[in-house]
C-alpha cells in the first residue's frame, strides 16, 4: 500500500472535495471511490467489495443542506487500502471498520469546516453587504482551500489507520470472518432501515417492497 500512498492521497482528496464543494459528480460514492482505490492498488475486487458494503451503509443518508453526513467516500479509500491484498472475507470486515471510523472523522471535519466558513463570513459581513467582489472571491476561495485541507487530512488519517491495521492485525482469522459477517449484515440492515425511514408509509413503500421481493427471488432461485 505504501507504494501507492501518493496516488491514494490524491484520490482521497478528490473524493472528499466531490462530496459537497466541487461538482458532486459522485466519485464520492463509496462504491466508486473504493473500486478506483482498489484499481490503484491492483486489487479492484477488494476495493469494490468494501465499497459495496459501505455503499449500503451510505444509502441511509441524504446529503441535504445543513444535515451532517459521514464522508463514506474517503472511508472507502481507506477501507480499500486496508483490504487490498488480503484474501476475501479475512480483509473485508476489518477494512470496513476502518472505513466507518474514517467516515465519522470526515463527518466531524465537515462540521468544523462549516463553522470556520461561518466565522469567516461573519468577519467580512460589512464587505459582503457592500457588494465587494474581492470579499466574495476571497471567502469562496478560502472555503474551497479549507475543504482541500479537510479532505487531505482525513485521507491521511485513513491511510495511516490502514497501514497500522495492516501491520498489527487486531483479530485472528476466525475473528476477521466474524467481523465481516456482522458488518455485511449491518450494512444490509442500514440500507433497508434508511429507505424505510425515507419513504415512510407512502405509496413508494410498495415499490421498495416489490424490489426487495424480486431481488430476493433472483438471489434464491436464479443464482
Amino acid at each position, binding site marked *: 500500500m505504501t507504494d501507492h500512498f501518493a496516488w491514494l492521497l490524491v484520490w482521497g482528496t478528490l473524493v472528499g472535495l466531490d462530496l459537497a464543494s466541487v461538482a458532486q459528480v459522485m466519485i464520492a460514492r463509496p462504491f466508486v471511490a473504493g473500486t478506483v482505490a482498489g484499481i490503484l492498488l491492483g486489487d479492484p475486487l477488494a476495493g469494490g467489495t468494501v465499497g459495496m458494503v459501505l455503499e449500503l451503509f451510505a444509502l441511509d443518508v441524504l446529503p441535504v443542506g445543513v444535515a451532517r453526513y459521514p464522508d463514506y467516500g474517503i472511508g472507502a479509500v481507506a477501507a480499500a487500502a486496508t483490504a487490498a491484498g488480503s484474501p476475501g472475507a479475512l480483509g473485508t470486515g476489518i477494512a470496513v471498520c476502518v472505513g466507518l471510523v474514517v467516515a465519522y472523522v470526515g463527518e466531524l471535519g465537515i462540521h468544523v469546516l462549516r463553522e470556520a466558513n461561518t466565522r469567516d463570513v461573519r468577519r467580512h459581513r460589512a464587505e459582503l453587504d457592500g457588494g465587494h467582489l474581492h470579499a466574495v472571491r476571497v471567502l469562496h476561495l478560502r472555503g474551497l482551500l479549507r475543504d482541500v485541507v479537510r479532505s487531505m487530512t482525513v485521507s491521511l488519517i485513513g491511510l495511516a489507520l490502514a497501514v497500522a491495521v495492516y501491520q498489527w492485525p487486531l483479530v485472528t482469522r476466525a475473528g476477521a470472518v466474524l467481523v465481516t459477517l456482522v458488518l455485511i*449484515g449491518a450494512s444490509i440492515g442500514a440500507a433497508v432501515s434508511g429507505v424505510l425511514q425515507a419513504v415512510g408509509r407512502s405509496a413508494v413503500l410498495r415499490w421498495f417492497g416489490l424490489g426487495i421481493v424480486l431481488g430476493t427471488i433472483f438471489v434464491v432461485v436464479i443464482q
Partner: protein
Amino acid sequence: MSPLVGVWLRTLLVQASFSFDRMIGVGTAWAIQPLLRDLPPDRYRQAMCRATQFFNAHPYLAGMAIGALARVEHQELPEDTIVRLRQALVSPLGSVGDKLIWAGLMPASVGVGLIVGALASPLAGAITFLVLYNTGHFTLRTWALREGWHNGRDVSRSLTARGIQRGLRLAGPAGALAVGLAIPIAGGWLARGFALQTKVSVALVAALAVALAQWILPSFRGLRFGVVAALVALLVGWLW
C-alpha cells in the same frame, strides 16, 4: 467564453463556501458575477450586495435561481421584487431537487450500479452508475441555468413544466424499486462463498439492525449501528 458558460462552470463550486449564516449565498454571488458584469457600476454593486445574502437550494438547481436573478437585475425591477423572488425560490428549488435527485436519480443510479457490480464486476457497476447519474445530473444543471436566464421572474413556470412534474412522479418509485432490487442482490454477492447457515446469520444481523432502527431506537441506525456492531464484533473476534 460566454458569461453563461462561465456561470455554468462556477455553479459546479457553488457549495464551496457553505456557511451556517448564508448557506450558499456567497457561492451564489461568486457564480452570478459574470452575468452582472455589464451592469452600470451602481446597479452592479447593489446586485452583488443582494447576491451575497442568505440563499439555499439544491446545488444542481441553484443555476435556475442564478439565471433568473441575473435576468431580473438586468430588467431593473424594484429591489423588493428581486428580494421576494430570491426568497420565493429557496423552498421549491430545494424541494424539487431533493425529490428528483436525492430521492430519485441517486438511489435509482446507485441501485442499477450495485446490480451491475454484483452481476458483472465492481468496475462495470461503478462506470454504469457514473454514466447514468451524471447524464441526469448535467442535463438538469444545464436546463436549470438556461430556464432561469430565459424566464427571469416567471421561472416558476419551469418548475411546473410537464417534464419536471412527470419526473417528480416517477423519481420516488424508480429509486425505491432499484434500491429494493439491489439490496438482496448486493447482499447475496457479498455473502457469496459462505455456507447456508452463515448466510442465515448475516440475514439475522440485518433483521436486528432493521428492528432496532424501526421499533426500538430510531436514531441508532446507519453509521452508529455500524460502528457499534463493528466494535462488538471486533471484541468477540479478539476474544475468540
